[in-house]
């Protein structure tokens, strides 16, 4: 049986700077991964919006990137069930696009924070967190100046800090949408894929989504072959 390899694309915006780490992590778990720029079309099972400072974060973080022509393609991709991970600046872009609810503002301490933090997995039913236990404490690095999450009623948390690091409401570090095909998070799973880097808990985010896609593809192929018989 020939199951196609899950395909991932990393969108790089002018000012993205975690794009290569994301690509490396995707390839590391087995994705057929490539970069696309803001003018190219989406052709993937998983789309990753990486961290960085898109358009210098002018006006508000992620505000300009969220209004590029590719934003419409991303919205169509999400509506057709495509999977999206937005990391750090990517999360801010998804929030500005309105695909995830809430807002991200400057850390309450007023400065950039760069360290490894402990997080609690509060929802392990998303395609991105299936390899975690509910309530499990994991370690991931954060590196942001604007990570204070302001929630709205419809916010669905996936990851929470175990203590207050940036003033986020309800200690929220990562969220999903109602269809659970988007994960937006401030911590960097792509920077935690090897023990040498201080933690390899981020690896399971990519493994979860890789196997979720693979299982879906397998059942699709089986169905097709079953139909032939």
């Amino acid at each position, binding site marked *: 049986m020939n199951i196609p390899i899950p395909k991932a694309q990393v969108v790089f915006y002018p000012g993205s700077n975690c794009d290569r780490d994301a690509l490396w992590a995707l390839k590391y778990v087995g994705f057929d991964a490539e970069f696309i720029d803001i003018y190219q079309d989406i052709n993937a099972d998983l789309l990753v919006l990486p961290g960085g400072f898109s358009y210098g974060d002018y006006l508000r973080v992620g*505000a300009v990137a969220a*209004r590029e022509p590719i934003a419409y393609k991303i919205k169509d991709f999400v509506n057709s069930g495509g999977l999206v991970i937005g990391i750090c600046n990517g999360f801010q872009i998804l929030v500005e696009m309105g695909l995830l609810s*809430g*807002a991200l*503002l*400057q*850390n*309450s301490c*007023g400065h950039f924070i760069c360290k490894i933090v402990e997080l609690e997995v509060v929802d392990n039913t998303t395609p991105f967190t299936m390899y975690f236990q509910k309530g499990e404490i994991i370690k991931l690095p954060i590196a942001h100046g604007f990570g204070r999450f*302001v929630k709205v009623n419809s916010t669905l948390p996936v990851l929470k800090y175990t203590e207050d690091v940036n003033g986020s409401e309800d200690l929220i570090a990562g969220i999903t949408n109602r269809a659970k095909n988007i994960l937006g998070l401030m911590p960097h799973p792509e920077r935690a894929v090897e023990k040498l880097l201080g933690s390899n808990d981020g690896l399971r985010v990519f493994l979860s989504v890789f196997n979720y896609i693979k299982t879906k593809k397998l059942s699709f192929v089986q169905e097709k072959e079953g139909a032939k018989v």
Partner: protein
Amino acid sequence: MPIYRFMIDIQYKSHVRDPRGETIKRVLNEEYNIPVKNLRLGKSVHLEIDAETKEEALKQVEKACEKLLVNTVTETFEVKEI
């Protein structure tokens, strides 16, 4: 077509913390002994716009605010003609 000039004053909603404002207030209080009670740092956008009428211009400015300039989850805005 006449040109209209506007200033858009964008401020954080009252329940949203403003660390920049707090830091500036602390410096004014502690370094210069200026008894500032509360300080909020917002943004102001000045723009010129071509339109047939002032009403039409205002409509365009409101659209600019809703579409890009203001995040209504955390900010409020006020438009003034200048």
